[in-house]
């Protein structure tokens, strides 16, 4: 099935991974410790941190809880540039 990701999505995944690594370092937790506290599998956390996987909403909330930050801190600095509207009324 299509797991195609655009360049923006790929970049968003990487930015999320960087945020996660930074906040995890601040909390002094290992990937494994973070995974335990978030109720996620260690490899899942590792993949997200490496930017290889886009987290789902519930995963974001769980990671935030594990790191004791508001979930949206994990989205800090991330923006999405929307495509120009297409021709003609729908």
């Amino acid at each position, binding site marked *: 099935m299509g797991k195609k990701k655009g360049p923006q999505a790929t970049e*968003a995944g990487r930015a999320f991974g960087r945020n996660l690594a930074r906040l995890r370092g601040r909390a002094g937790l290992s990937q494994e410790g973070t995974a335990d506290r*978030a*109720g*996620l599998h260690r490899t899942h956390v590792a993949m997200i941190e490496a930017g290889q*996987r886009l*987290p789902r*909403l519930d995963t974001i909330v769980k990671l935030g809880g594990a790191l004791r930050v508001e979930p949206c801190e994990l989205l*800090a600095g991330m923006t999405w540039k929307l495509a120009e509207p*297409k021709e003609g009324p729908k």
Partner: protein
Amino acid sequence: MSGLGQEDKWVGKEWTPAERFAANVVWFRLKAGLTQQELADRVGMNRTALSALERGLRLPRLDTILKLVAGLGAENCDLVAWMWWDPPGHESYETPPGVADIGGYEVWDFDVSPRLRVSPVGYETRERFRDRLRQMDEEDPVPELLRDDAPSAALRPRPDAAWVARTPQALRSLREERGLSREQLAERARTTAAFIGKLEEGEVPDPGLQTLTEICRALDGEGSGLSAQIEPVRAERRAAVQKVPDEPAERDARAAEE
């Protein structure tokens, strides 16, 4: 009458994170004065997909969240607000990623952990919220979860006991047929051996369908007893989520955007 409609049924309802996100989206969409169609066009999404999201039937992926934030002119923190997770003191489990992972959505059919806390408040009272919705004069003016007769309990029925009883046996025999240990299977299915153990001991009263599907796939279990367990239930649930968004159209839109 304390604060934000404490007497309100809406407040008493148990929300899932998907519903909380849905309410956040609806709220900011109305604040921006957009119809569903307009927002869908802005973010390059199918309107039915957005509608499903706004009814709390879908969990968005990171890219979808960011797109909606951009389309609504909101902040990242606005849409992921009012949801928290309490770190557990014991082993916990989440549905592995990557199953039915299409175009930024997943069908919402796994268990919600009690550790995911969701706040029902945060905006005005339901009445004022509904008034605003009515003013929008839309095709689908009041989202399901805000209706008076909105179901307050789980949206899907628990699986029947006979089905639950058959699952451990089907799983164990398929795993043994493939000659895998619980650890090996856990590694392949991105879960834990302890969870496989619980499944096989029949200690999971309502195993998530996506979890089972992932495990079945890891066992290369097409045509097996385990897949015979999964498929009918999957078909049933698909039918229950009446309007499954038009994924191909959405993919096309995404392709065009890129």
